[in-house]
Structures are given as C-alpha cells and as structure tokens.
C-alpha cells in the first residue's frame, strides 16, 4: 500500500481488492457514484431502445413491427425501467453519492457499507425487472401504474415486476436515509445548513420524500402481490375491494416521487448557473426553502392523477388547488436562476447550454402541468398523449437534461480529464432539436383526443406520429454524439485542472480526480458557498 501523504486518486487507489472487485466491493462513495452511473446508463439505454420501438410501431396505423400484446408489454417495461431504475435513483444516486460528501466537506457518506449494499439492492431489483420480460407468462402489460383490477387479473408476470419495484423502492429508501444522516452529521466544521451549497439542499428535500413516501407504495405493491397469490381482495371489486383506493395509494407515493426526480435536477442547475455566470446565486434562501416547500406540499396533491376516476367533487377541487400552490416554488426557482444571469460574466459551455435547455423545457413541461392540474382542461387531456408529452418534457427534458448538464459539469472532476467542448455543444443542440420534434406534436394530438397507451390510432393523428419518429431518430443521433464525446474524453481527453470552471463549492478545492479520502484535513467553512470576489 502506498503512503497516505502522497496524493492518490480514487481511481488509482488499490485497496484490499484488485481490479473489478476493487470497484464492486468498494465502499468509497466516489466509486459507488461511478458504479451507479454505469448501471443507470445501461438501463437508460435499454429503456430508450424500448421507447424508440414504440415510436416505430406508432409510425403507421395498424401493425407496423409488433402485435398489440407486445406493445403493451413494451410501454409497461419502458415505464418501469425509466421511472424506477433510471430517474428515481438517477441524479441522487450518481451525483448525490459522488458529490454530496465532497460538497459538504465530508470524507464519505454516513453509512458507507449500507451505501454499497444499496447498489447491490438496486442491481438485484433491476435484474428482476428485466427478467420479467423473459418469463413464460410474458412481459407485464399493466402500464407502470399497475392499476387494479386489471393488474390482479392479467395472466402476465405482474408479480415479478411489482416485486422488482418493491426492491428498487427499498434501495431508494436506503439512499435517502443515508443522505439525511450524512447531511445532519457530517457537514464540515462551521458549515451551517444555510452555508450548504444548494445541490445538497435539493438532495435533502428529495431524500425526505424517498424516505417517507416509498414505504406506502411498497406496502401497496405487496398487497397487490398477495391479492394475486391468495385471492385477498383489497383492490379487486369482485372480492369486495376498491380499485380507486389502489389509485390513491399508488399516487400517494408516485406523485411525490416526481419530485424525487426533479428536485436533485433543480439542484444541479442551481450549481451550474452561478459557476458559468461567475456570480453568486440570486436568492439563495428562497431556492433552499422552495425545495423544502415543494417536498412538503408535494405530498398532498396526488389526487390530480385521478380527476376522472369518480372521486368526490370536494376532493377534485382540493387537489387542484394544492397542485397549483405547489407550482409556485418551482416558478420562484426559475426566476432566481434567470436573475442570476443578470450582469454575470457568462461562459457558454456545454453544462450551461444544457442548463438553458433545461429551463426552457422545464417551463414547457411545468406549464403544461398547470393545464393538467386545472380540472376542466384535465378532463379533456387526461390519459391522452398530452400527458405523455407533459411528463417527457418534464422528466426527460427536465431531469434528463439536468443530468447531462451535471455530467458535463462534473465530468473533469470525476475522471480528471476533459471532453471536447465543441462536440459537447453540438451534441446538446442536436438533442434539443430532436427532443422538441419528438414530443411537441404529442401535445397537439393529445388535446384533439389521441388516448395514450394506444397500440393503434385513427388516421387523423398520423402526421404527428411521423414527426415524432423523425424527432426520435435525431435524438438518438444526438445521444451518440454526446456519449461518444464523453467516452472519448474519459479515455484520451486532456488532463483537467482541479477547478476548470472556476467554481466556488468545496468539490473544486480538491484535485481532479479527488483523492481517496477527499480532504487532507477537514475544511473549515466561514462564508456562503457562492462567494465570488
């Protein structure tokens, strides 16, 4: 073993285990962060391929490349993979693991071994989810929402898929638990809550949702499994159950879950913008508190997914009102981000470009969320491709672009090398164009009534489906530009300095890539995190 005093990057460090085992048995939060990145990139690729298959199938009315049963399986598995395996663990597990300890001046998360276990749980859950594709019963065909009573009756492998979701939920809970304790216990001396950078703030808010909302869906899925196995009738009306209750329980988790996805994404954007404007963030406190506000109020708006389910009128207006209230803190963040650009010194590099695209796409996704949240328009667009467009804009356009932004922002820190800046910008632009072509038409046909989860459609919707397919292909090309550039950068890129973007948060004070122990001595914090002179 080498001497401690010498700088050894976490990438080169040789512990007890060598080679690949040094990675998969590692408890180092940085190595785990990379492991999460590779796993999630793989899942994302699988999910994306399924997404494109759907687009090809929908290119013409009637059968194009697959049968209806196959299509139903594809959108279910696409949804399950994307939601439970990509976007919920995505940002917090990858960048949260890698940068949360660095940003608050800690040497690791509070429970490193639990952290390693969590990765394994995620992998186990993902294997189950993917296995559900290949079992004899055929892929689950319920949609990622698993609505009863169909899910209690269909002959496909719903049990495996729900078990997978349950296991993945467990991983999510443990990540949240680990982060909350880390933030409470391991902040560097002198760092108060309001001295923390805003990405940790966002993770903190999201972690509470992970911790408190996930168990509800966990127990719901277990009830569903038991219902199938033993004919216990909680949700199946034939046995006395109540299918609407299933929807309540499902959305009690799954609405807050959308904030698990977007809060860390907003956190990334909040880091990127001040760095590339060389300006302290505008409205630090407002942004920090709005994260908590979104998390708190977000718990009580779940019913907006159920306006047409026959809920009582009182519930409909209550949920609608709260849905609108929860939009305000998001708006506050957007205003503060843009205010931060005012009189900055803006350097238009890939991370910042992605952040700008994020803001644009997030406004579209968010404001179409407002349309969905208003009861009367919701009646028109509920369960149509308008909803599909809304959530792709806000998940993929929001969380996805924020992920890419973070990836380009922290890449030099993670790998100690630089990618080609020009190619990165081109990748971003191609993705942006493809993205809008792919999803914008879906808003229009959604308002005209094209239902979602439709294998086939009436000819009047054909034009939009064609544009979407073209967009999907452009998007796909964009991805190869982006990923290719990054992979090349990681292997052969120029050596990156410790602080390539002139950032002010703690992760930029250590060498790139960071040493095993992060900090030689505990940093002492006296001032606010975005202190540009």
């Amino acid at each position, binding site marked *: 073993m080498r001497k401690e005093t010498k700088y050894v990057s976490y990438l080169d460090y040789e512990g007890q285990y060598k080679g690949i085992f040094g990675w998969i048995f590692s408890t180092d939060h940085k190595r785990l962060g990379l492991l999460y990145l590779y796993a999630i990139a793989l899942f994302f690729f699988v999910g994306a391929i399924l997404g494109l298959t759907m687009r090809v199938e929908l290119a013409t009315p009637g059968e194009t490349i697959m049968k209806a049963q196959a299509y139903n399986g594809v959108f279910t598995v696409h949804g399950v993979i994307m939601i439970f395996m990509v976007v919920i663990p995505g940002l917090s597990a990858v960048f949260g693991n890698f940068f949360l300890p660095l940003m608050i001046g800690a040497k690791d998360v509070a429970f490193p071994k639990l952290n390693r276990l969590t990765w394994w749980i995620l992998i186990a859950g993902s294997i189950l989810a993917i296995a559900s594709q290949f079992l004899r019963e055929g892929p689950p065909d319920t949609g990622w929402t698993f609505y009863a009573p169909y899910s209690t009756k269909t002959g496909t492998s719903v049990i495996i898929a729900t078990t997978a979701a349950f296991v993945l939920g467990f991983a999510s809970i443990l990540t949240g638990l680990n982060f909350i304790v880390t933030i409470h*216990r391991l902040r560097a001396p002198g760092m108060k809550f309001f001295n923390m950078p805003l990405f940790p703030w966002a993770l903190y808010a999201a972690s509470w949702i992970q911790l408190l909302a996930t168990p509800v869906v966990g127990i719901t899925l277990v009830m569903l499994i038991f219902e199938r196995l033993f004919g216990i009738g909680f949700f199946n009306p034939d046995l006395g159950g109540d299918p*609407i209750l299933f929807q309540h329980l499902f959305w009690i988790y799954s609405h807050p879950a959308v904030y698990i996805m977007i809060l860390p994404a907003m956190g990334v954007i909040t880091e990127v913008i001040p760095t590339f404007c060389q300006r302290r963030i505008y409205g630090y406190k407002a942004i920090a508190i709005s994260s908590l506000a979104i998390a708190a109020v977000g*718990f009580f708006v779940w019913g907006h997914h159920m306006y047409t389910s026959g809920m*009582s009128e009182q519930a409909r207006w*209550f949920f609608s009102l709260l849905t609108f209230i929860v939009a305000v803190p998001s708006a506050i963040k957007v205003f503060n981000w843009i205010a931060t650009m005012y009189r900055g010194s803006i350097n238009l590099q890939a991370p910042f470009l992605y952040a700008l695209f994020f803001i644009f796409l997030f406004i579209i996704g968010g404001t179409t969320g407002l349309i969905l949240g208003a009861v009367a328009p919701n009646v028109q667009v509920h369960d149509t491709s308008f909803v599909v467009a809304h959530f792709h804009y806000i998940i993929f356009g929001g969380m996805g672009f924020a992920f890419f932004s973070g990836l380009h922002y922290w890449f030099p820190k993670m790998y100690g090398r630089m990618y080609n800046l020009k190619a990165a910008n081109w990748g971003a632009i191609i993705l942006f164009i493809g993205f809008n072509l792919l999803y914008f038409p879906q808003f229009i046909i959604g308002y005209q009534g094209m239902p979602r989860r439709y294998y086939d459609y009436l000819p009047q919707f054909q034009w939009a489906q064609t544009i979407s397919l073209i967009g999907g292909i452009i998007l796909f090309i964009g991805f190869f530009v982006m990923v290719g550039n990054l992979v090349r950068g990681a292997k052969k890129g120029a050596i990156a300095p410790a602080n390539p973007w002139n950032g002010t948060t703690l992760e930029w004070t250590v060498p790139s890539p960071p040493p095993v122990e992060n900090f030689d001595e505990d940093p002492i914090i006296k001032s606010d995190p975005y202190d540009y002179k």
Partner: protein
Amino acid sequence: MSEHTHHITPYKTLGIILVVLFFFTFLTIEITSIHLGALTVTVALLIAGVKGFLVLSYFMHLKHESLLLKILVAMVFVLFALIVLITFIDYAFR
C-alpha cells in the same frame, strides 16, 4: 458535533410507565365494551395515542432527545394524519 451524554432512564420510571400502560390497556377494553357509538373509535384511538406517546417518550427516550428529533417524529405522525384526512375528502363526500 459535540456528543451529548446519554440520559439513563431509571428502572423506577420504566416500572411506573409499564403500570400506567397496563392501566390504559384495561381501560380501552372496558370502554369499548360499553356502547358509545361512533365515539368508541375516537376514545380507543385517543387511549392508544396516549399509550403510544408514553412508549415514545420513555421507552424510546424521546423525552431526552434533541428537539430536532422530536420535531421529526411529530412531523411523521402529522404527515400520516394528513394523508388519511385528505383521502377521506374523497370517501366522505361520495
């Protein structure tokens, strides 16, 4: 991050709390066997609430924990109560 010293709960306190818990257990059984109509659930839940409070405060030492932890525990119960109440906005008015 100073570690505050652990409070040690005396045996006697534990004993007293146990007896009080017994008492409340018998009280619920007695009260729910007389017919109070809709009130019964409320009373039974109130008593269970008191028992739960005692277990949390003394057996689980919450009384001597930091304010932060107390707030967090309270928050979880409030969250659950709100979720139930809000779900009933649907069921009660159908």
